[in-house]
């Protein structure tokens, strides 16, 4: 399993994601979306997508540490990064990008943070990997890779160059 994941060509997966995103944007007549990458892995994927799609609006970034639902259990990670989201989220079509979709809690936190900046017209979720085992009623619109992993397996994106998937048991 581990060797399988490590041998996946991430660039090629992101190419497929970019094509799917371009199709969907065209279908929904969205011209200038605002792309937001979730720190840290999601931002790496978003940087590539942003470039491949040739988006005009600068890439925004979000760190959801202050919106997590487990602060009372694990406290704050001091390595939290500032979020850089333009103050005019109002009326934007947002493409939210993350590396691995698992429980859905990160995306829940990211949506809450985005809505504290304003009311976007729509949010599209694009993820590199959907590994299943959701704990919240959320799904991704664009998925690069679907994996069926047992709950104790963790999958994580390493990068930024080169991007690779790795699993670790704990």
């Amino acid at each position, binding site marked *: 399993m581990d060797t399988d994941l490590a041998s996946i060509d991430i660039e090629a997966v992101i190419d497929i994601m970019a094509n799917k995103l371009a199709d969907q944007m065209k279908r929904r007549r969205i011209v200038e979306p605002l792309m937001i990458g979730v720190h840290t892995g999601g931002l790496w994927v978003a940087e590539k997508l942003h470039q491949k799609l040739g988006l005009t609006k600068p890439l925004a970034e979000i*760190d959801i*540490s*202050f*919106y*997590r639902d487990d*602060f*009372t*259990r*694990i*406290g*704050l990670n*001091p*390595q*939290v*990064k*500032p*979020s*850089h*989201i333009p*103050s005019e*989220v*109002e009326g934007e079509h947002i493409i939210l990008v993350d590396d691995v979709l698992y429980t859905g809690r990160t995306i829940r936190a990211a949506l*809450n*943070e985005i*809505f*504290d*900046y*304003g009311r976007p017209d729509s949010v599209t979720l694009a993820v590199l990997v959907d590994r299943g085992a959701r704990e919240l009623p959320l799904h991704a619109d664009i998925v690069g890779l679907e994996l069926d992993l047992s709950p104790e397996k963790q999958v994580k994106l390493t990068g930024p160059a080169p991007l690779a998937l790795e699993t670790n048991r704990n």
Partner: protein
Amino acid sequence: MSSSKQPASTSFKAPDSSRLQLDEQGRLRHFLTTEGLSKDILTDIMDVAESFSSVGNQAVKKVPVLRGKTIVNLFFENSTRTRTTFDLAAKRLSADVINLNIATSATSKGESILDTIRNLEAMHADMFVVRHSASGAAHFIANNVEPHVSVINAGDGSHAHPTQAMLDMFTIRREKKEFSTLKVAIIGDILHSRVARSQIHALNTLGVKEVRVIAPKTLLPSDTDSLGVHVYSDLRTGLDDVDVIIMLRLQRERMGAALLPSEHEYFECFGLTEEKLAYAKPDVTVMHPGPINRGVEMDAAVADGPHSVILQQVTNGIAIRMAVMTLTLGQNKVAG
């Protein structure tokens, strides 16, 4: 002479708070003084504050991180500005805040500090932000609270004012990026200044090149040697080649103690003017904790001039207080 060096109201011993404020894992549990804290912890505080700075840009200027927590601002000594920024910081973290001015409250009816604390704990307070005219008051309270409660020192006597010092460090880092090359001058009433003490500890821990204090001899503490500072009593000499100037507020109430001849004479010797500013580096940063006595500590032209970051200090103060509140309450939860 020796009596003039003690603030009149000292009733607690100024303690070594450095151990009390860390938990078993060496993380911040209370924030009582910058003394004895590692460079890593001071850097963590500034890094987290940097992240909180973007919250001010949100349409909804709030993050939910301390939702459901109750923070009590316990001010035994008045300070509108400090209390307002703590209040705002707690609200931006979605905590519930109670402001108590004890000077006008229960203790004037004879209730002891411990009784006040026990009562507030019974109301499920999670944090006390303490301001007191006696050195060691916050330490005393931190020593007596329940394990899940954190205490932040918002100024105790002439001992420490760590959040003011950290917002100044944060402002310096945002202006200058790197501490190791900096010469920093602190000017004014060093003797009575809890701000100066906390700043000197933080500046030395963060590894600045040189810390100078510039003051009349009557306003210098006797232990300047152990503080690791260079002492100057002439403003122009002391300002030579400095990168950062930190002015202290001259507390008018000290004037009565005959430590200073007059405000006018103080301004002549130690007031910051554009002429004196020219002795420092061309890109010098000028700071002041506020409120400014214009024409006493500095000229209006300097306070409002291009080198001044006095208003940025106020904004940075909110982010620093958010960071300290989140770090202390967050680490605290692990034990509980």
